[in-house]
């Protein structure tokens, strides 16, 4: 980024180092934020290419391109890379860049740890990706890693476990850093309830991360010792229970879902008020809603397992608790709706992505509510209906949230406005193709197509064709996104003002654009 020129204003001695060393040893939150975001974008494309392998194979019935073994490797790797490599690091990158600026702090609280937590990630994913070239191929048992199937993984197995460990360590360190930053680096007068929503949702997310990433690490460690060191946590023959893995996994897995969506809630809660030119409706109830979602996420895990064979009381409990999540989620959606109500809206790219988020995430919420109904879930479970559901919350949900954030803060990062016209084209292409990809999947699932199959009966041909065309279109549209970012990063565009948008709220808009290498070395005064 071109922040060197501005840092000269007050701190010529504190400017970034030159060349590769700057990035390898940097402890600057903005540099690390940039690294996270670039890493995430790279992973988004790697994971996306795998999605395109999947969709190309599924375009028509019959096998055309890959063998079933490789297909399973693709579905497994696609999920692991998108979840741990693309979505989560993107939000950590946004947190790094924005949280110190939003709370008026000079940097993250633990800058050195910040550097480590980033650089662990490329190592983790290097290991994970290297399994593609190993004997037996990459992991193919699904990202959920259910035993006993996952124990049939070839040489890749210990590397899978080790890379999950590294990802966990990275996100735990990142989460600790974010919490300590939020709690200890706030400018005087920035009380907790005055914090912007993005900071709030990240605070909750970070606690979720610390609570559940170690549990996942524990679960995969048990898999590892079951495989190599003679334990039998999940081996029935030794008194273990394969279903217990599913319980432990989803004890992690369900909060994980909110780890991937809560920061997007935060982003949207920043953007909608700016472009509606109206304060966020119900700030405090938003905080309570996010907290209740986080709490509820710990007691709903077994709704991923309604077909596993549970006593009736268990099913009832998990059905009711899951349905309850709709209440705080509804509060959030209604609050955004009320924020827009009687506003004075304009529709720049960040707003467009936020609005698409609002509509499409809500659709994902509806299918989520349907999935909560245990008897109906018997028919939905492990079908394309589920695939449609979680892609609706993850792609036009989390990913659109990330893209909205990127457009919203890009002028602050680069000092120039991104190309608004191209941004809008990118938005419309993404929005149309995302629906073309994932909406037909609802029908496929209801019609009886299981997920994770490389080939299917001919009756499913049409909708699969649509989904594949959509996926290819969506993938190509993202090249435009990269072009827009590169163009802005090169300083190619209209110079941005400090405020960038029309009277936005938040401390990040009080510093010049691009943000100097060091900001708020003297804490700002917070107005009442």
């Amino acid at each position, binding site marked *: 980024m071109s922040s060197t020129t501005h840092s000269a204003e007050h701190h010529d001695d504190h400017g970034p180092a030159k060349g590769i060393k700057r990035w390898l040893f940097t402890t600057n939150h903005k540099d690390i934020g940039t690294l996270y975001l670039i890493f995430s974008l790279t992973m988004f494309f790697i994971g996306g290419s795998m999605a395109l392998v999947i969709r190309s194979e599924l375009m028509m019935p019959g096998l055309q391109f890959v063998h079933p073994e490789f297909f399973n490797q693709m579905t497994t790797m696609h999920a692991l890379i998108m979840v741990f490599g693309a979505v989560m690091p993107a939000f950590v990158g946004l947190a790094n860049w924005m949280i110190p600026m939003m709370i008026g702090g000079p940097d993250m609280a633990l800058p050195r740890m910040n550097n480590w937590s980033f650089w662990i990630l490329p190592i983790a994913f290097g290991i994970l990706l290297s399994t593609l070239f190993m004997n037996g191929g990459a992991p193919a048992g699904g990202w959920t890693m259910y035993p006993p199937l996952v124990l049939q993984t070839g040489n890749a197995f210990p590397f899978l476990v080790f890379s999950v460990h590294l990802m966990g360590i990275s996100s735990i360190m990142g989460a600790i850093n974010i919490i300590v930053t939020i709690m200890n680096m706030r400018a005087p007068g920035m009380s907790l309830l005055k914090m912007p929503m993005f900071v709030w949702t990240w605070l909750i997310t970070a606690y979720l991360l610390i609570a559940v990433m170690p549990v996942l690490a*524990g679960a995969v460690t048990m898999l590892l010792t079951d495989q190599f060191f003679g334990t039998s946590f999940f081996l029935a023959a030794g008194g273990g229970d394969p279903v217990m893995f599913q319980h432990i996994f989803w004890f992690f897995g369900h909060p994980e879902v909110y780890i991937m969506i809560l920061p997007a809630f935060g982003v949207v809660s920043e953007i909608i008020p700016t472009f509606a030119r109206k304060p966020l409706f119900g700030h405090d109830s938003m905080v309570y809603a996010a907290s209740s979602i986080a709490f509820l996420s710990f007691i709903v895990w077994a709704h991923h397992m309604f077909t596993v064979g549970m006593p009736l009381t268990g099913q009832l409990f998990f059905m009711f608790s899951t349905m309850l999540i709709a209440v705080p989620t509804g509060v959030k959606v209604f609050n955004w709706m009320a924020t827009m109500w009687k506003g004075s809206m304009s529709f720049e790219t960040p707003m467009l992505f936020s609005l698409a988020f609002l509509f499409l995430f809500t659709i994902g919420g509806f299918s989520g509510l349907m999935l909560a109904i245990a008897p109906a879930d018997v028919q939905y479970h492990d079908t394309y209906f589920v695939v449609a559901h979680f892609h609706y919350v993850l792609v036009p949900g989390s990913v659109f949230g990330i893209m909205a954030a990127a457009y919203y803060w890009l002028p602050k990062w680069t000092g120039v406005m991104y190309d608004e016209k191209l941004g809008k084209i990118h938005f419309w292409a993404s929005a149309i193709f995302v629906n073309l990809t994932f909406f037909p999947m609802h029908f496929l699932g209801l019609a009886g197509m299981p997920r994770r199959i490389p080939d299917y009966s001919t009756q499913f041909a049409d909708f699969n064709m649509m989904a594949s065309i959509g996926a290819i279109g969506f993938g190509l549209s993202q090249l435009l996104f990269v072009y827009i970012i590169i163009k802005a990063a090169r300083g190619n565009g209209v110079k941005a003002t400090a405020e960038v948008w029309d009277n936005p709220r938040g401390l990040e808009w009080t510093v010049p654009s691009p943000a100097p290498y060091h900001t708020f070395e003297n804490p700002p005064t917070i107005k009442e």
Partner: protein
Amino acid sequence: MEKKNPDVEIGTATFTRRLLLLAVAMFGFGYLLVPLYSVFCELTGFGGKPNETAATVVENIDENRLVKVEFVTTVNEYAPWEFSAAVADMEVHPGKLYKATFRARNLSHETKVAQAVPSIVPVQAAKYFRKTECFCFTQQAFSPDEARDLEVQFIVDSNLPSYVDTVTLSYTFFDTARLAQNN
């Protein structure tokens, strides 16, 4: 930093240490879920696991009630055993001690060690199905081509919910070679 936020109560180093500790504790909690899960299963019958060690029970026979107990046998991963129940099912009075016999034969020409894993449906019945003696409590070694009878002594608790009229007991034979190899 000249001005400090007055809200800051815990120093950065202490706070970081506490959060790290929390992370480590949660890793431990992951492992704690294992015994918690067993307790949970025992309490609710979740998973359909009957007791895995001998239960001591007093007979308290309910002559007016008959419950059908069915037996299902499975051999896992094509392990070389023939394994079946002597009778497909039996009618039992709750609270009375019964004995059921299973027949197993090692089809290979080597010594093989089996572990039988029990499971019960309906899962609600699991905690009322008490075994006082069972071949599944320990591993069973079979010399080459050996055939032998295996016994289980059980009692169906008279507190078995009245809506349960059939209890199905399943045993799956696992070859322990894989486990032993690792040990």
